Structure formats: structure tokens, C-alpha cells
């Protein structure tokens, strides 16, 4: 009993100590940010504040020494019970804080101070250092401004004023500039410079480290003075040989470059923790006063390094990002990053996607006007390694091994893991960061999103596996902070959830070191009554994989819109529907009649209830009655149904009590630029990112906000499936080449085939209705999602039932695919339905739709199999045996010796193929469902590079007038997929005839390679080579592709030509 009591006491004690420390930290922070106080005043007050954070605060005394000054309470004396932390600026010690206990105190683990107290003092010291640095920098920039003003007055020998100033304030830079100047003079043949240079190199031999940064060491004092003298001499020489303007110009350029020098060194040093890099960026921002004037190669290089450091190593990402993300953008970014002490983490995939999209869309272009007013929610980031620091802070590292347990056990233990994490503490620096984040974000509701490394790696295939949580963010600061840390812990816990782990296990990603970044985003929207919500939100895709009309092209895109929070558009909600719009052709609606429009209109809305602080789903009519008057642009969101007529209302006289209101977004689509904006965003992002994208957005009634952006490539189940080319004729069941979407149905065991011919011969409508009923019965008997329905014309025809089997959605909701067969009748082919009667049901339940045109030229339709294979209908449904003539049920494994039907659909090729295949083993089946078929594989780029080398090896430079050949792009970067080109640059110096010959020769290669690639991968193209001939002039002027040659990053690689 006693022991237990003791341990509880200890626990309480520990917690009390922690609270004291945090409290102390807050107070320190508050003092440091009080701009009206001078530094001396701040330090003087700090010595009274700090003791409160200590275990024995009553006898705790603090002294701060800085710049020769001492700040301490009266009677301060150092005792043996002292703890010290240094105040450093740019690695130089400039002062220290000392904490002493005035009298004897008990020791813990051999120290007078607690472990956390050490950390506390370090943190305080660091904060003080940064504040001092900040103030110093401001001082310097003020001096600089004064000097500049002085210059503009005299307007004469400006450079002299500058170097004079430098000589006083920054001797290192002064010497650095003089060095540059010597080189410059030397290059221009100035003899005196040569002499100086000699003196210098002699010095270097003697003092090898003199150019290094530590020039302030006492032992180097003398050489520093000598150097200054040399420098003065240099500028005197310069003044004789160069014009004032030139000197000024040079100095300015070098100063700019030098300013960035430390930045570049910091960023390129992979051993430096993130904090150093963030400091360097901040520092650079201050000294450059926000005007970044970096030389283009340096800017490019820094961009790439920063992108790599903060976001991703992925070359594809870097290649795109470096063209849009500028060094200065990182300053704003790092202001909102929360990271563990000495961390090295990144921001994760989601953050990377949004950051890049924002930069792309902010680049001025022809679309700027349309995108005017596009905004991005204020976001804070927690780096990916914070989760590990969180776990180790709480000694929970063993949770990491969770993923290697049996899935059942993981499932069983998951709730415990969640509770465990939620009851753990965050390290002080994270708490501090979160507290700053909350102050910055204010009391708007927040969303805590995961942003993991795997999401980054895997594209969208991994999306939605981890949690996102909404927070009302109401109450006192402490309550808000508690709710936030709680939410972060819960999102962290989702890494250890059974679903993501199972998913990773299936894909062999279990050993990937998964770390999760966090995005803390303000929720877009406004308060309406007790609720907080955006006017509307949704998701949009560049490629429309669910076309409801033959007139919609894949690239017309697809948007899913809902009122309120976008959760209902992101996830498929089985009993509710978002509004679907194809931005490229917005006037073609899924639902046409008033009845359809109403039936497939959203009924519920997700909101944040500010009163209860919870996320809620409300009935739309109820919400409109409650706060319709406050709902922004509501007249553009709803339509009124009256007298069989549905119409978009005017803003006045909307009756929320009585009118029959339906969400249609009619006004939004027809009377606002919203769709145009959406389309521009999708088009621009797709073009610049070189891949179709998937975005999330929200609108508060005034502005459109982009919330998320990622490549669309691989939403599970909608991956373009390779079409095998080597299937024997008798194994092909059907092929199709019109209105194909992406996807694959791996193991279909049953085919329900309604024979179009027999069906059209039915005389009585009663018989046709009976076919519909049989289909409904089969739907409940056959294995879910393992059978397909094939039938004539329009499934679920509501008008004339001889045009298609009369079924409703519930009669086929278990099928894997709905296939409509359009057989030629005389000289006309009936128009198919595209599933429009229940299109939205198909979309929400992922049932594939495929139209077949068996009579089209080049189309295979294996009627022999469909009509010849044994019909098991009489066995399954003996009472319907009489209809066995018309409706056939084929048990595929039974008639093919254990094989299955596989349907591969590839919208990129516009082809689909249904064929008999060996069933995949269970594990393979999982892979079939999810792994993107297009991911870069070793094989594709390797083969391409080999081929490029072969081309170079056989290219006779003399015959074709070729000077050099380079390879670049995906082949060089090892990211080539099965459909990639081989990008070549050819430095051409020959004549017209040689050019003709060369093109002919290359075309031959191109065709051959395309053919080989086709047989390797099933990807068809008109040629595999994408080559560009460059002249000497091109290369000199670096026009278009010529910039690739010798570029700072991603330079084209030169290949050896024949005979080289």
C-alpha cells in the first residue's frame, strides 16, 4: 500500500514539476516578445522569472551575464549547486545563464537539478540567444539604411561608403570582397593584382585556415590585420583601374552572393539538424531584408537542396518543384514549422503537394485573372520525425514494433495504442511550437491532417489511410492546446492502426521507415448559428474516370461538390450523393429530370458544432431552417422545386421554412466563375506537374481555398490496367474500345449474360419484368463483386422495357460491373445508357460500367463462349429454369477448369479486355487491386538508357554532322515508366542534307523502339524517341532545351558517339 502511495506521490510530484517548467517557459516567452522593453530590461526581469520553473524555487537564484553586463538579484552568489547554459550567437559564446541553489537541496540521479530542468535552461538560453541575434540584425540593418541614405545624398563614390561601412561592421565580408576583387583585377590583366595575389597565396601556405570562418581566434589576430591592409590596398588598385560604377556593381553582386554563402553551406550540409537550416534561412532573410538577389545557378541549387531537405528526394518532384518554388518561399514556410530539438525531419507528402501547388498557381500567367482570389488556408507543420521524438520522450519506442505483430493482435491492441498515445506528453519544444501555432491560428476551428512519408512515396494509393481530425478550437488557451495535442496523438496512433499496417504489409512496405508529419490547418468557412462550415467544398480530378455521357472526354475532369465540410465529397457515403460536375463540360449534368435531380441531391451536411465542440452531420433542411439566412451564397447552392419545376432561386424571398429546397449548385455552376476557376486550377496543375492531379478545395462564400493537391495517378482501383497482348483468341471473352475508364476486375467467377437476341424476342412485358426479377435474385445469390452483368441496351430502362432489362439499383448492387451490349440492328446501333439511371449509385459503390459494341470493326465478342458454356441458372434458380434460354449464368471456374474471367480496362489506351485467366493467389490479388501499374520500374528506364547508349554508339558523327548527343528526362533520371519517351538532345553542326539523313535515321530507331516497347509493355506509341536538334547558336544562347546541357541540376548526360 505504502509503496503504491509513494509512487503516486512521485507521479503527482513529477507532474507538478512539469507544469512549473511549462509555466516558466511561457513567462520567458512573454518577456522576450515584449518589444517595448530594452534587452537589458528583459534580462533583468528574466532572472526573477526563471526560478519559478525550478523544483526549489524559493532558494533558486539566477544570474545572466551578457556583453560584460551582469543581471542578478541582490546577494547572488555562485554555489556548488549551480547549473549553467551558454548564450551563443552564430556559435560564439556571448554570455551565460547560471542557476544556483542558495542552500543544500536533495539530489536526484546524482544531480541537484532534474533532467527536465537542464532541458528547460537550455531552451531558455536558446530563446535568449535568438532574441539577441534578432535585435543585432535589426541594428545592422538600421546602420545599413543610414549608410544608404548617406549615399543617396552624396551620390558620389558610393562604393567607398559601402566598403568603409563594411570595414567597420563586417571585416570578414570586407576581406572576402577584396579577395574577389583581386581575382577580378587579375583576370583583367592588372599587374599589381598579380603581385597582391602572390602575397596572399604565400599567406595561405603559412596559415592554411585563414580562409576558414574562425578568424576571430586570438592567434590569427595579426594575420587579420595584415589581411585588412591587403584589402585596403586592393581597393586602392581597383579605384585606379575600374570605373566607380563597375566597382559598385561588382561589390553589390558579391555581397549578395556572400550573404547566401552560409545559407548554401547550411543547406547543403546534410548533417545539420533542421533547426540550423531554419535559423540560416531566417538569418538570410533578415540580412537580405527580404530582397533575395541570388545568382541564377545559386538560386537553382539552393532551391533543389531546400526542396530535398524539406519535402522529398523524389527526382520527379524536385524537377517540377524547382521551377516554381523559390528560396524566398521557404522563409514563410519555416516560420510555421514545429520540430523536435535536433530533428532532421521533413514535412511529408501532403504538405509537399499543397506547397508546390500553391507556388505553381501563384506564378503569374494567362490564367491569373481567373485565379484571382484563390487562397490557401493558414497552415502549421510538424516535421515527420516529431512522432519518433514523441515516442522516445515517453519511452514508447516499442510501439514501433506493433507492425510486426499478427494483424488480429494489432486490431485488438489498437484501441490501447490510441489511449496510450493520447495519455502521453509532448516534448517541451513541440508544446512551445504548438502554443505559438495556436496564437497564430487564433480560435478558428482547425483540422489536424497527417502528412506522411509513405503518402509522398506512394502517391494517392495511400491516401485516406491515416486520420484527419477536426477541432472546434474553443475554450481557454490551455483547453485548446490540450485538444490539439490530443488530436495529434490520435493521428499519430493511426500509423499503428490495423488497416494501414495491413495495407503496407500487402505491398511489402512494412519495413519502410514510416514517419508522419502533421499539418495543422485552419478550417475554411464561417460561423452560422452554432455551426462552423464552408459554404461548400469538394474534390476534383483532372481525369474523369466516371463519364456519364459519351460527350464527356476524360480530360474534362470531374468534381464532387457538397455543401459544408468536404468530408462527404472525399469519402463515398453510401446513402448520400455529392453533386458531380465535369468542369470541361459543365452543362452536361448527370441528372436531368427534376426527379433524378432531387433523388441524387445531397441530403446531409458535415459541420463543426462550436457549442459542443464536435464534428456533426446534419440534415440539410434542418440546417437551412436554423441558419439559412446566414448561409453565404445559399441561393447559388440550392434550387427550389415547385409544380414539377426545379429552378435556381433569386437571393431575395428564399423561404427556408416552407420552400422545397434541394442542393443542386445550379447558380454556382451557371452564374459564377467557380467552374472556370476549378478547371483552370486542374489544367494548370496538370500541365506544370506533368501528371493528372487530385485536389481538395473549400469555399467560404467569398474565396476559393485550395486545401490539398496530389497526383491523381493511382486512386486505388482506378489505375490504368495494362492490356495483355498475348491472349489466345479462344480465351478472349470480349474487347472494347469506346468510353473506357481505368480499372481492373481481377477474379470474376460468374457471368450473368442476358442474350440480347433472345431478350428482344420476348413478347410479353411480363416476361421482361421476370428477367429483371431473376437478375435481382441472382444478385443476392452470387458472390459479391465476383460476378458481372452483361445485357442488351439500357440496363434499368424506365421507358420502354424492351430496350433493356428492367432492374433497379438494388437488383444489381453486388455486381462487379454492369456491361451494356449494343448490337447493331439493321443499320443502326442503339444508344446505350451509360448507367445514367443510377449513375451516381454506380460511382458511390465502385461498380464499373462498360459498354460493348460487338459489331464494331476489330472488336472481339466471344458469343460462342457466352452462349455455349454450361448454364447453371436452372441449378441456382430452379423456378426460373424456363428463362434459361434468355438468361445465362456461367460459372467460369467450372467451365474453364478452375480459371476466372479477368477484365482489364485502360483509359489511356482506350481499350478494355475481358479474358479467361488463371486466378491470382490471394496475395497477388491484393497486389493486383492496388499497386500502380505505372510506377517507375528498374526495368523501364534501364532498358531505355541502354537503347540510348546503343543509338549513340552507332551514330556516326562525321556522316550526320553531329557533335554530341545527350540523354535527359525520365531515362536519365531513372524514373521512366512503360509509356515514357526517350528524350535526346543532339548537338548538330551539319548541313541540310545531313539533317534530313539524321532525322530519317532517328525516325527508324524511334519506330523500332516503339514496336519493341509495345511488345514489352502493351503501351502503344507512334515513336519512342523524343529528340531535339540543337545548333551551336542554340547552345550558346541556351535556348529552349539547350539549357539542359550543363545545367546545375538535372543536366542532360552526354553519351559517347561512335568512335569516341
Amino acid at each position, binding site marked *: 500500500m505504502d509503496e503504491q502511495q509513494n509512487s503516486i506521490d512521485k507521479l503527482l510530484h513529477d507532474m507538478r514539476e512539469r507544469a512549473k517548467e511549462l509555466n516558466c517557459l511561457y513567462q520567458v516567452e512573454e518577456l522576450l516578445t515584449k518589444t517595448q522593453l530594452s534587452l537589458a530590461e528583459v534580462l533583468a526581469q528574466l532572472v526573477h522569472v526563471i526560478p519559478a520553473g525550478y523544483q526549489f524555487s524559493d532558494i533558486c537564484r539566477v544570474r545572466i551575464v551578457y556583453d560584460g553586463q551582469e543581471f542578478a538579484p541582490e546577494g547572488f552568489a555562485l554555489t556548488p549547486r549551480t547549473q549553467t547554459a551558454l548564450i551563443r550567437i552564430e556559435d560564439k559564446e556571448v554570455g551565460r545563464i547560471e542557476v544556483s541553489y542558495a542552500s543544500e537541496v536533495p539530489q536526484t540521479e546524482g544531480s541537484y537539478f532534474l533532467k527536465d530542468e537542464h532541458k528547460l535552461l537550455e531552451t531558455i538560453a536558446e530563446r535568449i540567444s535568438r532574441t539577441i541575434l534578432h535585435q543585432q540584425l535589426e541594428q545592422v540593418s538600421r546602420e545599413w539604411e543610414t549608410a544608404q541614405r548617406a549615399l543617396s545624398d552624396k551620390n558620389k563614390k558610393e562604393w567607398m561608403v559601402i566598403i568603409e561601412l563594411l570595414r567597420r561592421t563586417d571585416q570578414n565580408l570586407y576581406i572576402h570582397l577584396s579577395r574577389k576583387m583581386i581575382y577580378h583585377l587579375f583576370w583583367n590583366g592588372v599587374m599589381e593584382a598579380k603581385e597582391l595575389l602572390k602575397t596572399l597565396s604565400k599567406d595561405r601556405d603559412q596559415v592554411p585556415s585563414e580562409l576558414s570562418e574562425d578568424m576571430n581566434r586570438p592567434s590569427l589576430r595579426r594575420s587579420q590585420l595584415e589581411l585588412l591592409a591587403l584589402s585596403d590596398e586592393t581597393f586602392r588598385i581597383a579605384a585606379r583601374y575600374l570605373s566607380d560604377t563597375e566597382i559598385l556593381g561588382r561589390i553589390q553582386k558579391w555581397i549578395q552572393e556572400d550573404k547566401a554563402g552560409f545559407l548554401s553551406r547550411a543547406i547543403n550540409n546534410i548533417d545539420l539538424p533542421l533547426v540550423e537550416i531554419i535559423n540560416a534561412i531566417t538569418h538570410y532573410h533578415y540580412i537580405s531584408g527580404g530582397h533575395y538577389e541570388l545568382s541564377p545557378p545559386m538560386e537553382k541549387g539552393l532551391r533543389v537542396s531546400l526542396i530535398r531537405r524539406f519535402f522529398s528526394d523524389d527526382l520527379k518532384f524536385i524537377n517540377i518543384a524547382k521551377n516554381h518554388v523559390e528560396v524566398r518561399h521557404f522563409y514563410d514556410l519555416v516560420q510555421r514549422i514545429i520540430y523536435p530539438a535536433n530533428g532532421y525531419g521533413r514535412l511529408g507528402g501532403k504538405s509537399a503537394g499543397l506547397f508546390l501547388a500553391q507556388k505553381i498557381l501563384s506564378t503569374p500567367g494567362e490564367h491569373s485573372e481567373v485565379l484571382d482570389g484563390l487562397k490557401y488556408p493558414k497552415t502549421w507543420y510538424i516535421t515527420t520525425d516529431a512522432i519518433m521524438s514523441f515516442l522516445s520522450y515517453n519511452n514508447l519506442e516499442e510501439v514501433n514494433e506493433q507492425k510486426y505483430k499478427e494483424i488480429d493482435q494489432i486490431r485488438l491492441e489498437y484501441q490501447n495504442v490510441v489511449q496510450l498515445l493520447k495519455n502521453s506528453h509532448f516534448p517541451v519544444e513541440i508544446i512551445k511550437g504548438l502554443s505559438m501555432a495556436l496564437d497564430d491560428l487564433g480560435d478558428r476551428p482547425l483540422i489536424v491532417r497527417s502528412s506522411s512519408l509513405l503518402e509522398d512515396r506512394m502517391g494517392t494509393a495511400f491516401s485516406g489511410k491515416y486520420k484527419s481530425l477536426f477541432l472546434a478550437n474553443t475554450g481557454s488557451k490551455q483547453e485548446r492546446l490540450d485538444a490539439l495535442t490530443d488530436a495529434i496523438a490520435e493521428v499519430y496512433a493511426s500509423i499503428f492502426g490495423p488497416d494501414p499496417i495491413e495495407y503496407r504489409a500487402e505491398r511489402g512496405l512494412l519495413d519502410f521507415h514510416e514517419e508522419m508529419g502533421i499539418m495543422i490547418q485552419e478550417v475554411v468557412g464561417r460561423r452560422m448559428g452554432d455551426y462552423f462550415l464552408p459554404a461548400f467544398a469538394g474534390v476534383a480530378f483532372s481525369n474523369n474516370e466516371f463519364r456519364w455521357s459519351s460527350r464527356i472526354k476524360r480530360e474534362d475532369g470531374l468534381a464532387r461538390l457538397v455543401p459544408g465540410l468536404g468530408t462527404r465529397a472525399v469519402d463515398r457515403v453510401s*446513402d448520400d450523393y455529392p453533386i458531380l460536375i465535369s468542369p470541361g463540360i459543365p*452543362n*452536361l449534368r*448527370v441528372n436531368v429530370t427534376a426527379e433524378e435531380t432531387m433523388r441524387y441531391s445531397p441530403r446531409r451536411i458535415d459541420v463543426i458544432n462550436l457549442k459542443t465542440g464536435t464534428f456533426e452531420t446534419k440534415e440539410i433542411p434542418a440546417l437551412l431552417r436554423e441558419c439559412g439566412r446566414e448561409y453565404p451564397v445559399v441561393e447559388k447552392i440550392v434550387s427550389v422545386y*415547385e409544380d*414539377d*419545376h426545379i429552378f435556381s432561386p433569386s437571393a431575395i424571398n428564399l423561404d427556408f421554412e416552407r420552400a422545397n429546397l434541394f442542393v443542386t449548385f445550379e447558380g454556382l455552376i451557371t452564374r459564377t466563375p467557380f467552374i472556370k476557376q476549378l478547371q483552370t486550377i486542374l489544367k494548370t496543375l496538370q500541365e506544370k506537374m506533368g501528371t493528372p492531379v487530385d485536389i481538395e478545395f473549400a469555399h467560404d462564400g467569398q474565396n476559393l481555398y485550395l486545401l490539398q493537391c496530389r497526383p491523381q495517378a493511382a486512386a486505388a482501383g482506378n489505375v490504368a490496367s495494362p492490356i495483355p497482348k498475348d491472349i489466345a483468341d479462344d480465351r478472349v471473352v470480349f474487347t472494347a474500345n469506346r468510353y473506357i475508364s481505368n480499372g481492373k476486375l481481377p477474379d470474376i467467377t460468374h457471368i450473368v449474360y442476358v442474350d440480347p437476341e433472345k431478350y428482344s424476342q420476348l413478347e410479353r412485358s411480363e416476361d421482361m419484368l421476370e428477367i429483371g426479377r431473376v437478375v435481382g435474385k441472382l444478385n443476392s445469390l452470387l458472390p459479391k463483386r465476383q460476378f458481372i452483368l452483361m445485357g442488351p441496351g439500357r440496363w434499368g430502362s424506365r421507358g420502354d422495357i424492351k430496350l433493356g432489362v428492367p432492374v433497379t439499383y438494388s437488383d444489381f448492387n453486388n455486381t462487379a460491373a454492369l456491361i451494356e451490349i449494343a448490337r447493331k440492328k439493321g443499320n443502326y446501333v442503339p444508344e446505350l445508357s451509360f448507367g445514367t439511371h443510377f449513375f451516381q449509385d454506380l460511382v458511390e459503390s465502385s461498380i464499373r460500367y462498360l459498354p460493348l459494341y460487338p459489331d464494331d470493326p476489330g472488336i472481339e465478342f466471344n458469343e460462342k463462349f457466352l452462349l455455349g458454356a454450361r448454364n447453371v441458372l436452372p441449378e441456382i434458380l430452379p423456378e426460373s429454369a424456363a428463362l434459361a434460354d434468355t438468361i445465362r449464368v456461367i460459372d467460369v471456374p467450372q467451365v474453364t477448369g478452375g480459371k476466372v474471367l479477368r477484365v482489364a480496362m485502360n483509359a489511356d489506351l482506350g481499350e478494355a479486355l475481358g479474358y479467361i485467366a488463371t486466378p491470382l493467389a490471394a496475395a497477388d490479388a491484393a497486389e493486383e487491386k492496388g499497386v500502380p501499374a505505372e510506377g517507375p520500374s528498374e526495368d523501364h528506364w534501364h532498358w531505355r538508357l541502354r537503347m540510348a547508349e546503343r543509338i549513340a554508339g552507332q551514330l556516326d558523327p562525321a556522316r550526320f554532322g553531329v557533335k554530341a548527343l545527350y540523354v535527359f528526362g525520365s531515362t536519365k533520371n531513372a524514373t521512366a515508366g512503360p509509356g515514357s519517351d526517350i528524350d535526346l538532345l543532339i548537338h548538330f553542326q551539319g548541313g541540310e542534307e545531313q539533317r534530313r539523313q539524321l532525322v530519317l535515321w532517328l525516325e527508324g530507331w524511334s519506330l523500332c523502339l516503339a514496336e519493341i516497347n509495345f511488345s514489352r509493355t502493351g503501351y502503344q506509341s507512334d515513336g519512342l524517341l523524343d529528340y531535339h536538334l540543337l545548333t551551336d547558336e542554340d547552345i550558346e544562347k541556351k535556348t529552349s532545351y539547350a539549357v539542359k546541357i550543363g545545367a546545375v541540376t538535372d543536366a542532360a548526360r552526354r553519351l559517347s558517339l561512335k568512335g569516341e
Partner: protein
Amino acid sequence: MADKSFNAFKMAQQQFDNVAEKLDLDPATRELLRNPLREYHFAIPVKMDDGSVKIFQGFRVQHNDGRGPCKGGIRFHPQETIDTVKALATWMTWKCAVVDIPLGGGKGGVICDPHNLSMREQEQICRGWVRQVVRNVGPLQDVPAPDVMTNAQHMIWMMDEYERLTGAKYPGFITGKPVGMGGSLGRTEATGFGVIYTLREALRELGIDIKKTTAAFQGFGNVSQYAVKLYQEYGGTPVCVSCWDQKESKSYTFIKKSGINLEELLGITDKFGGIDKAKAKGLGYEVADAEAWIQQEVDILVPAALENQINAETVKKISDKVKVVAEGANGPTTPEADEVFKKKNIFVIPDFLANAGGVTCSYFEQVQCNMNYFWTKEEVLSKLDNVMTSAFHAVYGLAKQKKAYMRDAAYMIAVSRVAQACKLRGWV
């Protein structure tokens, strides 16, 4: 092969032939009424949104205008066929005749799928349709109305085009317009109320006190809701309604033996006629499966949802207590079930009489438009009552006199009225 397959027009002709036989019509009359008087086929060129031009195929069939201007809807359907349109036009002739309104039968359509068309393109089709037949339609010739995949908006476009071409205001050219744009009040109630007006008269004739009756309603849409309302006002006890559950994609029957409370149910019904199951249970309703409505021990069945609901199978489940079936829906009863009704002596108010309240109200819309004076809702409904009541009695009288099944009697009276008109005009 083609002649073996299902053909709506053939079916309409067969139906007519049977009636003609019973009426012993002369060959010329038979020949005339078996086929439409006029059929218009025309092309409608439309400039599409993308700048291309597409040609749509349009129809108008005027089956018979012996009794007055033709009346009938315009359908937009991708697989529209002339046979379907002809059949529907024929049925319109009989429907108008059975309620004795001075109109003939017509139907029209365009082969198109509105799902593939923008609203602007649909507007062009509507206007193109009118341009092609402007000489052959009009308030005094042939009056279109909304039908499959067309609605009030399409009607307004068509009216506007007609008025542009003729240079005058003719709201009576078309019906189904919104109130305030030439539409009539009372249209929402018309069909459901019409069912109950005929039911009231049937019970009176059968000597049954409506106040002592119970009834089961299939469906909870517009028709059913208003039918229940009026039936209850007359003192009857509705014991169940059935409705479609969107979430589960199936129907349920909501039963309260002591009588359902319409207001209470409407309070827990979404805009699609779906009743909240849990809440209904809370209110003391028994929630049973879809077919429970037909098995109820009631005096009256009102199928007011889909076609073919009372068929060879389901008819067996009907309680012996049932005395009257009032067909609110179109074609809810199959011929096999009709035979059972005859055998069991169940009184049927056939669909095209029972649910003719809709077309009657369209006729009222036309009348009001032509005189450019609009009635109150009460006025519309009381006139509707008059029309439905006398229509019922005419059919009932004939059925009694000829000892005919009500459905047959209704056909006989309709056909004979049309035949008579043609004869008087000296056509045959």
C-alpha cells in the same frame, strides 16, 4: 423476328379490336380508329455547344381529334420509336373520352437523351420542334404537355417559340406550365383527389359507407399522399402506406390498424416520399416488407406506385375482405390478376378512369389559358369533382347495363364516344 417482339402499338390495337368487337363497330370506323389520323416525322437541326450541328428526329402523332383538339405529352427519350408514340397517342384518345372532356389524343417526342445534352441544347430542340410543326399544333388543334424527361421549363420554351412564330400570346398552346406562367392551381392534388372522387362514388353505388371502410395504399408519392388525405377527410380509415427506402433500395409498408395519421407521417417523410423507419416505429407503426400492403384485411386497395404490382403471384395474397381496387397508378394490374378480380367479384376502378384527374386538370389549365382568367384552387377542385363523378357514373352505368367488367366498360364508353363523334362529323 421483328414481328414477334413486344410492340406497344400492336398491343393498343389489339385492345381496341377487342372493344370494337364488343361494340360491334363497322369496319370503316374500326379502320379509322385503329390508326392515327396524322403522323408527323421531322428533323430538328440543333447547333450544339461545341459548334457542331446535330440532327434530331422528332415526332407528333395525332390519333384522333373527332372530339376536340388533340392533347398529349412530348417525350424526350433516346430510344423513342414511332410505335410507342402511336400507342400512347391512342391511349390518350380513350383517356380523354372516358372522362368526357372535349379533347382528342396525341403524343409526340424527340429521339434524344437529355443526359447527353446541356440545357441550352435542350432549349434548341424544344424550339426546333415547335418550328417544324407550328402549322399543325396550337390551342385549337393540338396541345402538348410534359412527359418523360420534359418538364415545365421545356413547356415554357415551346410556348415562347410558338408565340414568337405566331406573333400573339397563346398560353393555351401548351400545358404543364408553372403557376403564374399560365399554370393551373390544384394540379398537385388533381390525380390523388380524382382517385378518391371515383372511389367515393363507387362505394356509394355499392352501398358501402365510406366512413366504415379501411384502405391500404401502395406508394407515398404525390398521388398517394393526396388520395390518403381526401379519403381520410371523407371519414375512411387508411391503415397502411408503402414507400421506397432510398438507403436500402427496397420498399417498406407502414401499418397502423387503427388508422395512419397523414400529418404525422408527412412530418417524418423526406422530400422523396421516404418515411423514416425508426421514427415510424417510435410513433407506433408496424414496419413490414414491401408486399405487406396487398395482404391487409381492408375493404379497399389503392395501388398508387408502379405498374404490374398486382400480378398472378401477388393477387393470391389479397384478403377476401377486399371489395374495391382503385387504380391510382398506370397499369398496376396484369390481365391474369384481372381474371382473379372478376372471379372474386372485386370492383375495379380502372386506371385510365381513376387517375384521369391529371389530364382533366391539364384540360382546365388549357381552358383557363384560353380565356385568360384563372380560377381559385377550390373552383378547380370542385369542377374536377364534377367531371370525375359524372365520368364514373357513365362507366358504371354501362357496366351495370351490359354486365361488363369495369375496365371493359370504361374502354367501351371511351371508344363509343369517339366513334360517335366521327360518325356525327360524317367521317365514317
